[in-house]
C-alpha cells in the first residue's frame, strides 16, 4: 500500500497538477505523490504507460527492461541516436523531461532474474510483454505483499491486460437529482442534485486461478460465445501508442479471465516458439502456424475446433 507518510504538495506542484487536482482531488494527488511504481518492459505499450504515470506525478518510476532499442519501434521516447543502447537507458532522458518532479530509475536486468525482495519495494507493479509464466510468478509475489499488479500486451490493433487489485475497496458518487424551486426574480428552476457516496468491494483473482478454470463448463461456454466477437484480430504491426487505447477489460470474472488468457496464450505461444510476433511478410505461414497452435490449445481445453475461426487471424 502507499506509504502513510505525511505528504505535502508544494506550490509548484499545485500549479503543475492544477487541472488534475480539480478532477480527482488533492487527497488522490497526495497518494500519487507517495507512490513508487515498477514498470516492466519499455516497448510501445510501456512507453505510453511511462508517459502517463510520469505526468500524473508519482513519487518514482522504475523502468525495468533488458532489451536493446531497435529502429521502427513504437517507443517514442527513444531518440534515433540511441538505437542500439538498452531501451530504458535510451528512453531515460525523455521520460525524465516529462516531469522533473518524478524520480525516474533504470534497471537493465532481465526480469526473470528478479526475486521477491525486489518486487516488495514497490507500491504498484505494471508489466508489459511478459511471458505468461512470468506474469503468474510476479503476480503471486505481488499478491503475497498486497501489491496491485497489472500485466498487458499489444498485438497490432488489439491487446489485453490483466489486473489484480486483490481486495479492492472503492467508493462511488451516486447522483440523485433533486429539483427545487429557488427564489429568483423570475420563477427559475435550478437543479442542485444530491450526491451520496456508496462503498464497494471488488475481489480480484490471481492469474494462476484463471488458468485453473474449467473451460468446458457451461458458464464458460456461454461467456466464450459472447466474447468471441470481441477478440483481437491479427494485424502484423506494433502500433503501441494507438492500440493502447483498446486494451481490454478488467478480468474480475473467472470465466472471462480464463478465456482471454487461453486465447492470448495462442499469441504468446507463437511468440515464444517463433521468437517474434506474427508478421505480414510471412502472412501465409504464420496464419497456418496460428491455426496449428489454436488446434493444440483447443484440444487441451477439450473444446471444439470451430470455436475459434481462423478468420480472426487475418
Amino acid at each position, binding site marked *: 500500500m502507499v506509504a502513510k507518510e505525511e505528504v505535502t504538495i508544494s506550490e509548484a506542484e499545485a500549479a503543475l497538477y492544477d487541472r488534475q487536482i480539480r478532477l480527482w482531488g488533492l487527497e488522490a494527488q497526495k497518494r500519487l505523490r507517495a507512490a513508487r511504481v515498477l514498470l516492466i518492459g519499455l516497448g510501445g505499450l510501456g512507453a505510453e504507460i511511462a508517459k502517463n504515470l510520469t505526468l500524473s506525478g508519482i513519487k518514482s518510476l522504475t523502468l525495468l527492461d533488458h532489451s536493446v532499442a531497435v529502429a521502427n519501434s513504437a517507443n517514442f521516447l527513444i531518440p534515433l541516436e540511441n538505437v542500439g543502447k538498452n531501451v530504458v537507458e535510451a528512453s531515460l532522458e525523455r521520460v525524465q523531461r*516529462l516531469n522533473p518532479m518524478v524520480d525516474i530509475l533504470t534497471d537493465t536486468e532481465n526480469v526473470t532474474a528478479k526475486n521477491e525482495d525486489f518486487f516488495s519495494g514497490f507500491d504498484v507493479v505494471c508489466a508489459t510483454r511478459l511471458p505468461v509464466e512470468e506474469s503468474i510468478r510476479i503476480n503471486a509475489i505481488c499478491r503475497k505483499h498486497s501489491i496491485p499488479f497489472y500485466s498487458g500486451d499489444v498485438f497490432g490493433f488489439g491487446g489485453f491486460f490483466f489486473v489484480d487489485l486483490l481486495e479492492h475497496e472503492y467508493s462511488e458518487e451516486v447522483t440523485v437529482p433533486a429539483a427545487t424551486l429557488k427564489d429568483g426574480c423570475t420563477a427559475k428552476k435550478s437543479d442542485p442534485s444530491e450526491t451520496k457516496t456508496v462503498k464497494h468491494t471488488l475481489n480480484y483473482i490471481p492469474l494462476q486461478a484463471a488458468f485453473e478454470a474449467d473451460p468446458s463448463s457451461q458458464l464458460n461456454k456461454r461467456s466464450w460465445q459472447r466474447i468471441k466477437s470481441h477478440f483481437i484480430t491479427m494485424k502484423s504491426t506494433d502500433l503501441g501508442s494507438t*492500440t493502447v487505447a483498446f486494451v481490454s477489460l478488467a478480468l474480475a470474472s473467472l470465466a472471462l479471465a480464463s478465456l482471454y488468457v487461453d486465447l492470448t496464450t495462442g499469441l504468446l505461444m507463437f511468440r515464444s516458439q517463433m521468437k517474434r510476433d506474427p508478421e505480414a511478410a510471412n502472412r501465409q505461414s504464420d496464419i497456418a502456424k496460428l491455426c496449428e497452435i489454436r488446434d493444440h490449445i483447443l484440444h487441451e481445453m477439450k473444446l471444439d475446433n470451430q470455436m475459434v475461426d481462423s478468420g480472426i487471424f487475418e
Partner: protein
Amino acid sequence: MADVNVAPSLLDDSIRKSKILVVGAGGIGCELLKNLVLSGFNDILVIDLDTIDVSNLNRQFLFQKEHVGKSKAVIARESALGFNPNVTIVAKHDSVMNSEYNVTFFKQFTVVMNALDNRAARSHVNRMCLAANVPLIESGTAGYLGQVTAIRKGLSECYDCNPKAGQKSFPGCTIRNTPSEPIHCIVWAKHLFNQLFGEADPDEDVSPDTADPEAAGDAGSVALQNQASEAGNVTRVSTRAWAQQSEYDPSKLFGKFFCDDIKYLLSMDKLWTKRTPPTPLSWDNIPEEISDQQGGLIKDQKVWSPAECVQAMVSSIKILYQRSKELNGEESFLVWDKDDEASMDFVTACSNLRSHVFSIPKKSRFDVKAMAGNIIPAIATTNAVIAGLIVFEAFKILEGKWEECRHVYLNSKPNALNKVIAPSSLDSANPKCYVCSPHPEVTVLLNVSQMTVQSFEDKVLRGALHMISPDVMVDDGKGTVLISSEEGETTENMSKSLSDFNISDGTRLRCEDFHQEYDLNITIIDREHLEENREFTVIADPSQLQPKAAVESSGPQPSTSSSKPAPSTRATESVEIDEDLDVIFQKGTANDDHQQEPSIRKRSISGQADIGSASKKLRLSENDIIEL
C-alpha cells in the same frame, strides 16, 4: 524514431499519401500528433492560436517548462518531429477562423481532425469541411469522459445538427440585486472588473437595478426619489469615470459597492420579504473570522476571511489601476484573465465580500478560479484514449469503410452494456439542420425596435450562429442590404435598430457567409419581452414555434399600463467552456425551460433505431455524455 509499418494493405498506402489537418495542439492535439507521426502519416498541418501555460504541462506532454509562453503549434511540431524526423509537419500559430483558411485551403486535406475546446471553432470548421466536402473527425474530452465522432457531408449528421444545450446565464436582477449563490457573486465581481478596468458593457452593470420588476412599488420609487434628491439629478456617471475621480481609492470603492449600494438595495424592501436581507459592510469595521479549515490544503484552497478579502482587494486594485494607467492609445482597457494573479485576486476578494454581505457561503480562490475561468479538469490518459480512437476512425475513412465509422463514447465506468469504450452508430443528418440541410432556416425572436444592427451581427450572427463574415439582405423585394461583409459599406447601419429597416414580425432575412459557403434564411419574430429578460432566442425548428399569445405567460412581466423604466438588461455569463453568448436552440416551443438538458439520443450499436427517419427518437443515453 518510428517508421512503423502499418498493415500491408491499401490502408498503409492511403496513410502515406494522405494530408492531415489537426486543429488544436492542446490536450488531444499533442496525443494525436504523436499517434499520427508514429502511424505512418507523412504530411500534417497543425494549427493553434494559443501559447503554452504551466497548467498545460500535466498532459500536453510535447511541452516542457522552458516552453511556457511559446506557441503550442510550433513547439508541438518540434517535439513530434523528434519521434519521427521524416514526417512533414507545418505549424501555424493562428486562428483557424481566419480568412486565410478558406474552402480551397480545406480542400487540400484528406481528413480534418478537430482537437478543439470551444463550440464556435467547432461550428466553423464543421461548415468549412461541409463546404469543402472533406471528412471531419470531431472529438472532445472533459475529466474522465470523452467522445469521438465522424462527420461527412451527406453521410452523417454534422456538428450543428443537434441543438446544443443553452449556455447558463443569470437574469440581471439576480446578479445586481438578489444573488443567492456564490456563482452570482462571482459573475458580479467579473462584471465589476470590466466596469472598472476592462471594456465596459452596458449589459454588465453592477449597481442596483432599480427597474427590477420585483421591486416595483412604493419603496422602489422612494429610493429613486432619494437618489434623485441626493445627486441633484439622475444622470449616471460611468463606474469607471466615478472611480477615476478618487483615483481608485479602495476605501471609496469598498464604501460604494459593499455599503452604500447595499443600503440602497435594502430600501427596496419588497425584494426582502422572502429573502435574507443583505448586511452592509463597514470599511472601519471589517469582521474578523476564525478559520476552522482543515490543514494540508493548497494555499489557494483556503477560504479568505473578510479581512483577507479586503487586503487582497486593496493590493489587486493598486496593481490593476497602475496597469491601466500604463496603457496607451486604443488598448485602454484590461482583459480579465484567470491566470493573471491580480485579476484573480480581485474577483476572489470582491465576490467573497459580496457573498458575505448576502450571507452566501464563501469560496476559496481555487474554487472561484474554476467558476470564473470556466476550467474543465483534465488529465493525460483521457486525451490519450481519445486520440487513439480518432486515428482508428481515420483508418476507416482512409480505407473507404465509412459504414464502420462510429460515434464512440469513453465512459467513466462500464455502461449498461458493460462497455467503458462504447461505440454507437452515426446518426444521419437532421433534415432541418440549420447548417447542413439544403435550405437552412432559423427563426429568431427579438425586439425589433430595441435590437441594433450591430448587436444583431455580433450577438446573433457571430455569437449564436457562428458566422464569421456575414452578408445580410432583407427579403423585402427591394434587396435592402442590412449588413455587408465588405469593410465600411454598411457602417452607418450599425447603430440603427432593425425596425428602422422596416423589419417587423415575420420579416425574412437572407444571410450569407461567403467564407463558410453558408446560406441561411432567418425569420424574425418580434417579441417585446422574452423570458429571463433575454435579448433574443434562436429557434432551430421553426415549425415547433407556438403562437405568440400562448408564450408570454411565464414570469413576472412589467405591466404595460404603468410607466416603466427601461427593462433590466440581462446579464449573460457563460459558465460553459467557451465565451459564447447565451442562445437557446430549441427543438420545442419557446416556452421550454431553457436550462433543461436536451436528452441526447444515441443508439447502441446493437439497437436498430430507424436510421434516416425524419423523427429522431429521444431517449435517455446509456453513456456519459459531454457536450462537444
